[in-house]
């Protein structure tokens, strides 16, 4: 008998596995103690689309649904880079969007981190070498964490973001 969605209480968020220790360690090394004191166990994320096909966005939106429930970890998406600690960047970084990405970076207060989401953002993906793209976010900004996949599944996105969170909470 298939499980029904409703009526009844809303579906509970699903348990989430342990955080990858290796990623955590490498990230922790990048974060200084002052940043952790200021931010605590909470990160505000601003999404910046640098030419994505919207596949990554579909999976990122799933994180906000009840089953992944990003906010229970202290992670939330915000509307402005001025409120953000993390820029989550999708797309291969088209030449036409480089100025917009740099403006978003400049508007984000320090300390700040950049997460490259999806194969395109990592190195340009299938669009690598095109006249119109700059082959990934790393060509414009220092990237702290890459989450590969085309697109990465929500579970993978969540694991990456939790590693980022643990890294700077763990060093307090």
């Amino acid at each position: 008998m298939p499980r029904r969605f409703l009526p009844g209480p809303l579906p509970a968020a699903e348990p989430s596995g342990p955080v990858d220790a290796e990623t955590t360690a490498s990230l922790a090394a990048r974060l200084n103690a002052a940043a952790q004191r200021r931010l605590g166990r909470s990160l505000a994320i601003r999404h910046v689309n640098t030419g994505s096909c919207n596949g990554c966005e579909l999976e990122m939106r799933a994180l906000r649904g009840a089953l992944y429930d990003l906010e229970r970890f202290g992670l939330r998406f915000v509307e402005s880079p001025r409120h953000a600690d993390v820029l989550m960047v999708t797309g291969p970084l088209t030449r036409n969007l480089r100025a917009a990405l740099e403006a978003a970076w400049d508007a984000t207060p320090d300390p700040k981190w950049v997460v490259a989401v999806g194969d395109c953002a990592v190195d340009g993906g299938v669009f690598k070498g095109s006249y119109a793209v700059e082959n990934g976010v790393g060509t414009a900004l220092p990237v702290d964490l890459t989450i590969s996949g085309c697109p990465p599944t929500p579970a993978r996105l969540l694991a990456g973001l939790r590693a980022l969170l643990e890294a700077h909470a763990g060093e307090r």
Partner: protein
Amino acid sequence: MNPLAMLDAAGVEDCRPWPRRVLSRPDWSALVAALKADAQPALLALWADTAQVHALLLDEAMATVLPVSVAVEAGRYPALSPARPLAAWFERLVHDLWGHVAEGGRDARPWLDHGRWPHAQPMAPRPGPPSTAANPPELLPAEAEDLMQVPLGPVHGLIGEAMHVRLTARGDAVLRAESRLGYTHKGTLVLMRGKSPRAAARFAARLAGDATVAHSLAFARATEAALDMAAPPRAAALRAAMLELERVAGHLDALAVQADAAGLAGLHSMLSTMREHLLRGIGAAFGHRLMMDCVVPGGLAADVAPDGVAAILAPLEALEPDLPLMRRRCQALLGRLDGLGVVSRVAAFAWAAGGVVGRAAGRAFDVRRFDPACPAPTPPEEHVGDAATRGRVRLAQIADGIRLVRAVLAALPEGPVSVALPTASGEGIGCAESVRGDVWHWLRLDHGQIAAAFTRDPGWSLWPLAEAAIAGARVEEADAILHSFGLAASPVDL
């Protein structure tokens, strides 16, 4: 003279399944004049290669597609935009990519080229030096002192598209919305050129993540048409089911985004949970949650997993009993959208708007009619054309899509799911119904390699209609109207 009669008399080049008419320059100009006087046929797309400019016209009464071409002479061709306003954006694209100038065009501003590419006209035989197009791009100025301009984007929304919409408002009332795209241009057409159809299918699949099956399928059908072959029956049936699954998931996502923006947390939670269970079933069946790269020219990349049909049917069976409840709970959302962002029936036909936008306005055109593997979809009976009606059409399409998936999977033929592609030459057109409407692909193969290709996403007609629908609304309603269209930038920016 009737434009269709003019085309009947024209010379023909081989293009399957719809032969391509080639007009002389005077005949093309006469066609433009005739189109000015007649609302039909509608324009679907305008594009080019190095020697010709091509238009794709749609004769709705006959459900026939008419590709028409004219030779480019000294880098110029007579513009189509005086007769079909939709052509204006295409003419700007043709200039930015190939360098051909539309004589008498309505708008000569750059479109895709924001002055940042290493060379201008990247599709021309000899690309030019970098252009001096303005970045940020030039938009229409405000003409009066009491007007204010509200920019939206290119970094906009919570998790959204990279696009720019400039609202010109007097107080709270939007007088004009002008969208500016091209930000996500990735050079897809250049990347496809010179590749085999199988290799180029990866680019077709990445035009739009929410329409990856539709674009892959239209591209595969264009290839198969060019090579005069067909996918095996099992592949054709699975493709029809995959297309419906993608559309159901897409409508759930579009409604979830709207519920989220309206602050309806419970409805957002319900819709996104339904979608997530569906995507997990799809992932188990096809190996990818969005079915990216699953449809390839010649058939499918792989057969459905042994227990895949059950994995798809389980979430659908769980979803179906909750549909009446979902419809009831959506009333809270639809009530807020009543009367917002109206697209008239006349506009829907004139701009050949498909999908939810067209159906909500009373234009039922649906390219699934060309697919013998798809059972007949239920045509909606709507005509108001506002955002609430678009929401109702989405709800109806979710229920209808589930019905179609079950019907197709219940009678799934056995056999192979792909055939080898011959190394041959030819030209073909393919189409598929995406979550936004009809997607078209055209390509020309030269000994198994892509010599030229183009794709028409429904966004080409939806973005201008969204602009018009926002004008007259209030500034804070603009986002809700944009969401109701479910627009995507990437498949239009190429």
